[in-house]
């Protein structure tokens, strides 16, 4: 009896697994694979706040979202107007300051892209991405 239940269970699991494997193979191209941000380049809201005046906040969201609300003292630097906004941001930067870039939420890529350009093109060091973005900041501060 015990053996029969076990066998029945295994057959059902196998039957359920077959279409799952098939679908996984069929939809393999539909999955969005994005390289995660290395942990060393991420910073939590609490860590970022602990840096106080030693950090400078960069808002990578579109102009309208920045205009609506932002981290106090943050500078707007998005890729829509990169060449216009970068010269406005740089005079406020100094080598010992950490740069914290954020976008809307965990799922957005704008902060990662802006942080990468600050490292690669402007060759700034100590550039971090805020984990959870603006959403996380609001949760902790409002």
């Amino acid at each position, binding site marked *: 009896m015990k053996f*029969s239940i076990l066998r*029945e269970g295994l*057959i*059902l699991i196998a*039957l359920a697994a077959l*279409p799952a494997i098939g*679908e996984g193979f069929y*939809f393999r*191209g*539909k*999955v*969005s694979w*994005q390289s995660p941000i290395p942990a060393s380049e991420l910073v939590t809201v609490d860590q970022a706040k602990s840096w106080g*005046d*030693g950090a400078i906040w960069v808002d990578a*969201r*579109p102009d309208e*979202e920045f205009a609506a609300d932002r981290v106090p003292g943050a500078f707007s630097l*998005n*890729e*829509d*107007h*990169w*060449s*216009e906004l*970068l*010269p*406005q941001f*740089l*005079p*406020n*930067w*100094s*080598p*010992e*300051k950490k740069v914290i870039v954020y976008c*809307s939420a965990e*799922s*957005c*890529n*704008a902060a990662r*892209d802006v942080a990468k350009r600050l490292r690669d*093109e*402007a*060759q*700034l060091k100590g550039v971090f991405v805020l984990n959870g973005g603006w959403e996380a900041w609001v949760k902790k501060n409002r």
Partner: protein
Amino acid sequence: MKTRILTFSLSILLAVAARAELKWEQNTIELHPSMGDKQAVAHFKYQNTGTAPVRFKSVKASCGCTTTQTQKETVNPGEKGEITATFNIGDRTGMQMKTVNVQTDDPNPAQANIVLTLKADITPAMEVKPMFVYWTSGEEPKPKKISLKAAKEFPAKNVTIKSNNPNFESKVEPGKSAGEWTIEVTPKDTSHPQATSLLIQTDYPKEAPKSFYVNAQVTNPPQPSMMARPPIQAAPATPAAIPSPAGQR
């Protein structure tokens, strides 16, 4: 026992057979916008190959820079259509990957959530490296170099450079190959913080030559406390103080 397995299998088969299904021509579209294009548009075409209508519950782009448009809310069996994703390039360069998350009312979760990917390879007209050079206050005012490399599709022959702050000197020298230059920037003194935007003016295209900017500054010296630090005095206005070609942001 056999009857139970058969019934179970049949019910799965029937459920699969009755489902609605949006078949997408392509889930990933790669675009190669021309230099100067403001937008890149991808058309994701689909057909409902199932037997039941499919309704779009939501169509969301991963980035504020991408807008989407659906032709219809409900797609009947056999109907074709497309979702248009318009990517606003702005000042972006390099390979850009933007996703559109499509949610339908398909009871099959694998079909209900689809990720469409728009890839756009944006070649910068001019590769400027680095875009920013700096000296710390009190540091010896040694010249710093910036390299320029024009893309193949951007056959500029000459570039000139102009600073909006007289306290920075700059000069351009041709590089090893055609379409390459080296800029040398030197602050006259580094005794106090100051900044400049340097306008790189090219001679291409003839009717509206394109320009680029690089930034240079003398920063505050490192201090233990930054509470009372004065901000760096930027040049009169950057980069608007330097006349820029019409239509150039």
